[in-house]
């Protein structure tokens, strides 16, 4: 051990601050080094000399006087108001943040992620609102549909022509929105475009099957009526089949639907549609009209399978008179 370090350690040892592991080496050094031993003696002499100037306890009167002065000064300080506490809490919070930056970063990060997750969850599970319908139109790209009138100006080359322009538009929205349903019902009547008809019927049928606003309407303008029309008159077998399935929930409660199914069973040219009609009519065999049609089909239908299916359906209604 060097003397310089040993002399520092002597001071530390006198004040009880020397680590245990250094005690042994200092002890050995002091046994060998006269100068450092003198250092130890000098420290002891200093301590003894300083003992002549000890710490004086404050007199009771000084202490009492100081306490009174302090109490008076504290009384003059207004009690902590709301703003003071708010400020204190803010500084306290900042202090906590400074003392534990990693923890605060973790908390803020966790809060952010949790908030983000909650928002996504809410968006994903929110009840489907009818989204705002977006309509895009461009009147400059429309083609002229027809001319409705021509008004010449007397004594002039100017003429006024009245015409209608077909403007292509796009609408985007929920199947629950009135406007979209209206357009789909128009789509069901598009003779020239089978895809549009099929898609429209399929979508509205699905809506009816899940019970979304497919109520009976007296004015004959509802979705159910549109499906009845498709079932009766559409040229495409698949479209009629989709319409038939869309009407399934209302067979038991709506006579018009039953009548349309009976017509389909008697006259539809597609064997698949007729077969599907038999299965849909089975739960309502108590209706005499249904039994009558089943009887007719079981004897007159061209398709032996359908005749058999009708006959079997009739067997199930043996108890019904």
């Amino acid at each position, binding site marked *: 051990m060097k003397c310089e370090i040993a002399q520092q350690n002597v001071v530390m040892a006198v004040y009880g601050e020397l680590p245990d592991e250094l005690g042994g080496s200092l002890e050995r050094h002091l*046994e060998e080094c006269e100068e450092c031993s003198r250092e130890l003696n000098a420290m002891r002499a200093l301590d003894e000399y300083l003992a002549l100037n000890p710490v*004086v306890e404050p007199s009771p009167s000084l202490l009492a006087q100081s306490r009174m002065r302090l109490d008076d000064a504290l009384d003059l300080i207004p009690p902590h108001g709301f703003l003071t506490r708010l*400020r204190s809490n803010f500084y306290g919070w900042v202090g906590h943040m400074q003392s534990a930056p990693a923890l605060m970063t973790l908390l803020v990060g966790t809060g952010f992620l949790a908030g983000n997750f909650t928002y996504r969850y809410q968006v994903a599970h929110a009840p489907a609102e009818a989204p705002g319908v977006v309509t895009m139109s461009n009147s400059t790209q429309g083609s002229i549909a027809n001319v409705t009138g021509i008004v010449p100006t007397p004594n002039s080359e100017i003429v006024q022509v009245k015409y209608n322009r077909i403007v292509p538009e796009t609408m985007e929205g929920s199947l629950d929105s009135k406007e979209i349903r209206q357009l789909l019902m128009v789509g069901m009547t598009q003779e020239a475009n089978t895809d549009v008809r099929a898609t429209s019927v399929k979508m509205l049928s699905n809506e009816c099957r899940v019970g979304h606003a497919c109520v009976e309407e007296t004015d004959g303008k509802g979705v159910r009526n549109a499906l009845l029309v498709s079932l009766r008159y559409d040229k495409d077998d698949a479209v009629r089949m989709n319409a038939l399935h869309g009407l399934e929930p209302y067979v038991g409660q709506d006579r018009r639907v039953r009548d349309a199914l009976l017509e389909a069973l008697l006259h539809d040219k597609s064997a698949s549609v007729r077969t599907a009609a038999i299965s849909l009519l089975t739960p309502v065999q108590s209706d005499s009209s249904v039994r009558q049609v089943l009887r007719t089909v079981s004897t007159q239908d061209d398709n032996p399978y359908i005749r058999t299916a009708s006959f079997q359906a009739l067997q199930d209604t043996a108890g019904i008179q």
Partner: protein
Amino acid sequence: MRRGSVAGASLLRIGVESLPAMAKAATQTGTRGGKLTQAQIDARAQQRIEDDDLIREAQAGERTAFDALVRRYDQSVLRLALHMLGNEQDAQDVHQEAFIKAYRHLANFRFECSFYTWLYRIVTNLCLDQLRRRKSRREDPATVLDANGGEMDLMANISDERAMANPARELERKVMAEQIGCALDKLTPRERTVFELKHYQGLKLRTIGEMLSTTEETAKNTLFRATRKLREQLKTARSS
């Protein structure tokens, strides 16, 4: 009071032990500021718990809780200020200012250290400021003033059974005490503060470092410098 003085006295018994024995005594821990007994550790822990409860109540606006904290520590604060500044008026001012500061900033107390350490940090900084002001004014407070402005002999407060028995001895002690006071005044404010907190208050160097917003190593070096300076000063004083 000075802690570890008994142990220190045994350590500093001169001329009766052989050199190896002296060396062994010097390197033993448990002297001034050494290891605490289990009972002391438990007592401190209990005191800290009680302090923390009082602080929380005081932070909630309970003035009586703060008053209880004042009663716990004001004597220690006054003793430290009085010894460092050697002036009752200045000590009272520091005492009052320290507790008012503590009261105003109690909301910022975050329980990372003991209230005692936090309060002592305030007190030592106020004393440091006071000492620096004196240095800048080239003050030499050889005399101590009491609250009434009159001169006061600090040594008169020291109970010494031998004082009246041996007036010559008493006079000699007074002279030496004055020399010590002058030697302490020669230290820089920071050296004086570190030496005061270590030698007279018996605080650990780590705590002193915390109080003075510095490291334990710096406090250690400052203490070493202070002891060297004091030895030089007192050697000169004694030889003269």
